[in-house]
Structure formats: structure tokens, C-alpha cells
């Protein structure tokens, strides 16, 4: 496929975020198209390594650029530079090849205490819920909320479920869960309002590792259903797509 056909990134909206950051937005809807644009802008800004920029935070439909403590005039100058860099960023360029990470997970029972409730509310059998959850190749839109927590795109729409009325005070680490039209994995124990379908032993975040987060924006993710006995020995597979 020819790279020259890739669209350039025009049409970004840029706003101030207090005196701490600037925010760029390219769409109003979550999807692969907006994610691709966000990832391209992220890659271009990383490559530019502007000294005035403290951090970059990608989201579903935009990107937040945290600035150092700068006078207002300097912030305005950096904003103009960021605008130029993002406008010149090209989708697909400078983006590392996608990895596909296959994550073993044990569905239902004590590993997925909400599987039965999800089955009942969707009118599907438990086996059918599992089948529909392991079928897609999910895309990591971004990592956020907790260290290593992936926001995944690609959930089967029949599995979308409103969040629990009362959040759990403690969701165990490794829980694979559904919240709204999203699915994700809790890297550490945390309070949470999502429905717990399964549990994995995959270590999503290790601060002592050279690459602390198992997943990164743009990665592909698949789940592989394993039974409770096999979970302990099962390992994450990483295949370059």
C-alpha cells in the first residue's frame, strides 16, 4: 500500500487546559479512525521531543500535552509549534509495527463473578458470552486510569453493559471486565464499577521492567479462554502482526 495516500492530520481542535496543558481533539466519536490519528500525533510529538513539554497523554479522541511551568507567552508559542507538528503528522508513519498480545484468561466462577449476570442480562448462555468475548482482535486505544490499564476498542456490541449501580470497593488484579462499550484489564487491585468476566495472571505492569507496561497504544489484544487449572502455567504470547 502506498504511504503517499495517507491523509494528513488537519482538522484538529486545540484548546488550553488551565495553565498546565493544551488539549488537542480530532473527533467526537470513539473509533479506530480517531485512534489512528491520535497515535500518529503522539508519535510525531514524541519524535519532536520539545523541551517545553513535560508529558503526553493520549485518549480516545484526542491528546493532552502537559507543559512545563512556563510564562503565558511561552505557552502560546509552544501551542503554535505543537499545532504545526500535529498538522504535519502522517498516519502510519513513524508508528512501530503493531504487536498482537494473546492473554490467557479463566472465565466465570470465582475468576469471573459477573459472567452469569452478563449472560442473564444479554439473554445469551455463559458459553456464548465467552465465545463473543474471545472472538475479536481488540485494539489498545490508550493506557490510562491505572498504570498499564488498557482501554480496548472492539467489544462485541451485544456484550455492552451499563456499569454496576454500586461499584466494588476492591476489584482483584488481573480482572478482565466490561464497562459500557469498553473492555479492559485491571493491572492492580482497585475499586471499580465494571462487570468482571474473567481473570488473568498476565502481569500488565512491572515498574522494574525496561518496558513497564505490557501493552501500549496501538497494540492488538486477543483473549484465550483457559480453565482454572491451566491458568497458572499459561503464558502471554506476543506475535508481531
Amino acid at each position, binding site marked *: 500500500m502506498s504511504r503517499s495516500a495517507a491523509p494528513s492530520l488537519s482538522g484538529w481542535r486545540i484548546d488550553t*487546559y*488551565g495553565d498546565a496543558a493544551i*488539549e488537542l481533539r480530532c473527533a467526537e466519536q470513539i473509533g479506530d479512525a480517531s485512534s489512528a490519528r491520535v497515535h500518529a500525533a503522539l508519535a510525531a510529538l514524541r519524535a519532536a521531543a520539545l523541551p517545553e513539554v513535560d508529558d503526553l*497523554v493520549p*485518549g480516545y479522541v484526542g491528546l*493532552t500535552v502537559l507543559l512545563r511551568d512556563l510564562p503565558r507567552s511561552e505557552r502560546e508559542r509552544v501551542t503554535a509549534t505543537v499545532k504545526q507538528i500535529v498538522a504535519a503528522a502522517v498516519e502510519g508513519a513513524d508508528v512501530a509495527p503493531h504487536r498482537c498480545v494473546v492473554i490467557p484468561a479463566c472465565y466465570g466462577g470465582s475468576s469471573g463473578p459477573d459472567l452469569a449476570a452478563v449472560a442473564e442480562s444479554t439473554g445469551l448462555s455463559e458459553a456464548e458470552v465467552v465465545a463473543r468475548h474471545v472472538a475479536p482482535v481488540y485494539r489498545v486505544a*490508550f493506557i*490510562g486510569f*491505572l498504570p498499564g*490499564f488498557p482501554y480496548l476498542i472492539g467489544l462485541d456490541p451485544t456484550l455492552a453493559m451499563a456499569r454496576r449501580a454500586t461499584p466494588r470497593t476492591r476489584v482483584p488484579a488481573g480482572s478482565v471486565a466490561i464497562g459500557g462499550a469498553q473492555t479492559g484489564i485491571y493491572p492492580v487491585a482497585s475499586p471499580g464499577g465494571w462487570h468482571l468476566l474473567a481473570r488473568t495472571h498476565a502481569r500488565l505492569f512491572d515498574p522494574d521492567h525496561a518496558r513497564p507496561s505490557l501493552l501500549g497504544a496501538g497494540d492488538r489484544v486477543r483473549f484465550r479462554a483457559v480453565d482454572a487449572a491451566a491458568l497458572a502455567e499459561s503464558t502471554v504470547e506476543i506475535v508481531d502482526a
Partner: protein
Amino acid sequence: MLEVIAPGPLTSVQDLGRPGHRALGVPIAGAADADALRVANLLVGNSEHAAGLEFTLSGPVLRFSGPRVIALTGGNLDASIDGEPVPGWRPVALAAGSELRIGRVVLGARGYLAISGGINVKPVMGSRSTDLRCGFGGLHGRALRAGDHLPLGRSESASGRSLRRKRATSQRRFVAASWWVAATGDLRGDVAWLHVLPGPDIAALNPRVLRVLRSGTWIVSRDSDRMGLRFEGPEVPRVVVPEQISAAVLPGTVQLTPDGRPILLGVDAQTTGGYPRIAQVIRADLGRAMQLKPGDRVRPVLVDEEAAEGLRRLRTCELERMRFAIAMRLAED
């Protein structure tokens, strides 16, 4: 080596935090009142980035195995060395075997202790800060406990030499400098005024709700911590708080939760969120905001960019003046 005799309610190793990893969901952590830790470090001749201790509402009891220079900053404190009261906001040279007892934080919520040489725990992702929520960095990723031993760095700075000599040649357990610096940020007053700029999602809110949020006096609630301050306050008109597409949130961001209460995010807060971001506390007020404790009253003051810039300059100048004054004093001492 520093031995923890009693930890206090929440004492942790903190430096200026772990910036640059928010795309991995990693919060900045670090000292909640960063300027207070900066000044404490400068007073003992450390780099501003050295790790010290942050304690909350009340402080720890510590024993020093060797002679060190220390400084206490942050909220106003009751502290003593071997039973004798010790003043804050200045360098203090203490003898080997000294027991430092830090009592209640009288004004503000958090205090800081810097020690010459710094606390030398292993840096994780570029920082010695403790990420209390995720359990890494600092000492074993947790708050201090009785019986912990903290490694201290070598004190290489020449500053405070005469103070240490004075201490060594006297019979006293410690010698405090005769000079001190003024506290950063004024924590006195009935109501704390926090200057805010409009947040990125302010347009999503009903103007009536905004008016209530702005006109009220808010009381810091008990379930406040380094992740965020929650508030009790005026009845907010019952309207649907529209959930937003998850996007970045920052320390200083004020979100409106579905129950109509604002939450002011702190240094340990999550990196992204879906509640509307209605306001952003200006940088100059962030450290002071994190010195608020349960029961304190807060008034939000909406400012424009120009006013925020004026306040930013004032704070930057104050900090710069303090850096200069401390450097001059330490050179003379």
C-alpha cells in the same frame, strides 16, 4: 541510616515525582506541596530533587545513626529533638543518635523533612517517590512502618559546614541556624481562596450548576487524600452530569462527580477519567490546595489567563528569591 521508631498516620518517601510516564497510566506522585519539599532540600544543601519524607496531619518519630543537617517545612509543626523543641524552615545540625519527634501539623495538612544527603532508596522509573496506590517506589512501595530503616545518601555539599562544626564543638544535641525563611504560601485565614481557570469540559455543564459551584463555600471532606480532595457544600441542582469520553486529567483538575460534588485531583490521581473537567486550579495555588485538610473551607475564584499569569509570576519570583537567599546564607555559614 534513619530508623523509624513510630511512623505517624501516613509518612512516605517523596521527591518531586515521576513525570513523563502518564501515557503508561503512571501518576506523577511526589510531594503534594512540591515547593515545601524544594525549600527543605535547599536548606540542607541538597538538590531540589532529593528525596525527603512527607507526613500527613502528624509526623513520625525517627532516630539518626549519624550526624546530619535537617530542615522541616510545609505546615507549621510541633517538633523536638531529644525532648527539646526544634524550629522549622531553617537548617538544624543534629548529633548521631538523635531522636527527632514530629508532632501535629498545626497549620496545613502536610509537613516535609529533608535530610542532608537525601533518602537514598532505589529510584523506580526515574524517581524515589512512593506511589502509594500502585505500590512501587519509595520504601517497598508503601507508607513507613515502625522498625523500617531508610538508607541516607552521602552528604557532599559544603553548605552548613559551620553549623555542623558549631554542633560538634558544643555539648548540645542540636544547633539550629539563627536565620530562617518565610513559609511558602500563606495557610492562615478562615477561608482558603483557590484560583481556578475554566476546565476543558466547562461548556458541557448547565450554567445554573456552574453558578452554584462558583458562589458556594466548600468544606473539605474526610475522604480526602493524595489522590484528591472531596468537598461538602451547597446543594447542586439535580441535573444530569454528562459523562465525557475518557480523556486526560491532571493534578489540580476539578471534576464534577454524578452526585453533584466537585473533586479536586491530587498528585496520586488517575491519569484519565470520564467525569466532566469543570475547572483547573492554577499552578501557583496547587501546593497550597494540597495543604487543605478535612473541615477547611474553600472558596473557588474564577480568574482569567492574565490574572493567572500575574499570580504565576509572583510565586516564581518568591521561589527564586528564596533560592537566592538560602544560597547566600549557606555560603556565609
